């Protein structure tokens, strides 16, 4: 689904439109963050974040300003001249996020971007993403296998059915998740988490049976 919106795959039937225009291929209006290993190993943090701007033909000075801004946004000050192989997995994903945001996409597509990270790093990056999302109020399409991640980040949560992958149900999160960790104690949080998990569990069991 994410790759259809991204324009990497073609729909088997029907069409996908963004602001009325059909999607024909990948483009910078839809920024995508992959699971991992999507940074260019031959470019520094600075080079990676500025990649899309350079492709767009943004002049050097302007580019440098935007890159600096995004380095600060994902807290990577001091690592500007490092290469991806010198960074931890969490830092690499932060660079990938900054690389995508620097292109100013209309929609942010995220394919399990924190799935390969350890639990602590994942939690911190979720907080960062929520903070950035609040600031920009951009649409984010976020794919995850982690129910808690879905509830902690999503305002609308779509449960997909197991093979064939179709939309099973769409739930709206009726309460706000603030930037702190207080949401853990909200009763509705646990209730929604359980509600979604039961729905997902049905699918997992259906495949297994």
């Amino acid at each position, binding site marked *: 689904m994410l790759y259809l919106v991204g324009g990497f795959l073609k729909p088997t039937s029907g069409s996908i439109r963004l602001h009325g225009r059909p999607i024909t291929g990948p483009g910078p209006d839809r920024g995508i963050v992959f699971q991992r*290993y999507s940074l*260019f190993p031959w470019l520094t943090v600075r080079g990676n974040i500025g990649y899309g701007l350079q492709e767009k033909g943004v002049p050097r000075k302007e580019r440098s300003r935007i890159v600096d801004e995004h380095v600060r946004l994902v807290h990577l000050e001091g690592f500007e001249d490092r290469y991806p192989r010198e960074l931890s997995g969490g830092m690499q994903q932060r660079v990938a996020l900054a690389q995508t945001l620097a292109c100013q996409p209309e929609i942010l597509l995220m394919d399990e971007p924190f799935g390969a990270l350890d639990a602590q790093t994942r939690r911190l990056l979720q907080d960062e993403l929520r903070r950035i999302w609040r600031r920009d109020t951009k649409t984010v399409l976020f794919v995850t296998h982690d129910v808690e991640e879905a509830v902690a980040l999503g305002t609308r949560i779509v449960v997909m059915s197991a093979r064939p992958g179709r939309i099973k149900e769409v739930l709206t999160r009726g309460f706000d998740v603030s930037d702190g960790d207080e949401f853990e104690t909200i009763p509705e949080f646990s209730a929604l988490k359980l509600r979604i998990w039961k729905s997902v569990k049905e699918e997992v069991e259906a495949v297994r049976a």
Partner: protein
Amino acid sequence: MRLLPLVLLLTTWQLASSSGLLPKSVLPPFADVASILGKLLASGEIFPHTAASLARAGAGFLIAVVGGVALGLLMARVRAVQRAIEPILLLIYPVPKTALIPLFMIWLGIGDFSKVTVIALACLLPVVVATFNGARSVDDMLLWSARARGTSERRLLWRVVLPAALPQIAAGVRTAIAIAIIVLVSSEFISAETGLGYLIFSYGGVGADDAMLAVVIYLAVLGYLLDRFYLAGLRRLMSWHAFAH
């Protein structure tokens, strides 16, 4: 410490000669070879030959690198080119290029032109194969990521495919350096008046085995140094890549 195996080998060689185990007619003592090498260096006699050889090998090598990278990239990106070139390459690959030297001399004359051509052809193959494999095995993630960030299909080649293939290309070029020296010497065996291969051949022809071996050792050291310089240069220029060696 790294030189220990080498020192052991040379000591064994020298001991075998001085003890009479190894007659002079079979292998001259290392001490004799070393002293002749010293004379060749001190008199400066060997340097014009070195320059002539390096010019030939360097020209062939450079043509091979430029042509090989271009051809390898083209093969990886354009199916028709791959279909047309691949069978020819695979057929030429196992042919000992030195065996083609007489043929090239008939076609291109006995001068430097035919020598450079043979060296270029021999060096071309590892570069093409490495570039092709490198360009074909570029991670889809990188191509997708670049396209999603606005890179057109045409620019993809320069922005992603070439840099991503560089580590493999670098390995192919390293092989080409060794091949350049091997083919160079063979090409200078036949019809040359300068060059290290010519020196080896002419000393060998008059039975000066110690002088012949001196030039061979000189060539080995030269090749070793070229390889070291190349690797050191790579580490500097491609610090983004973790080299295994």
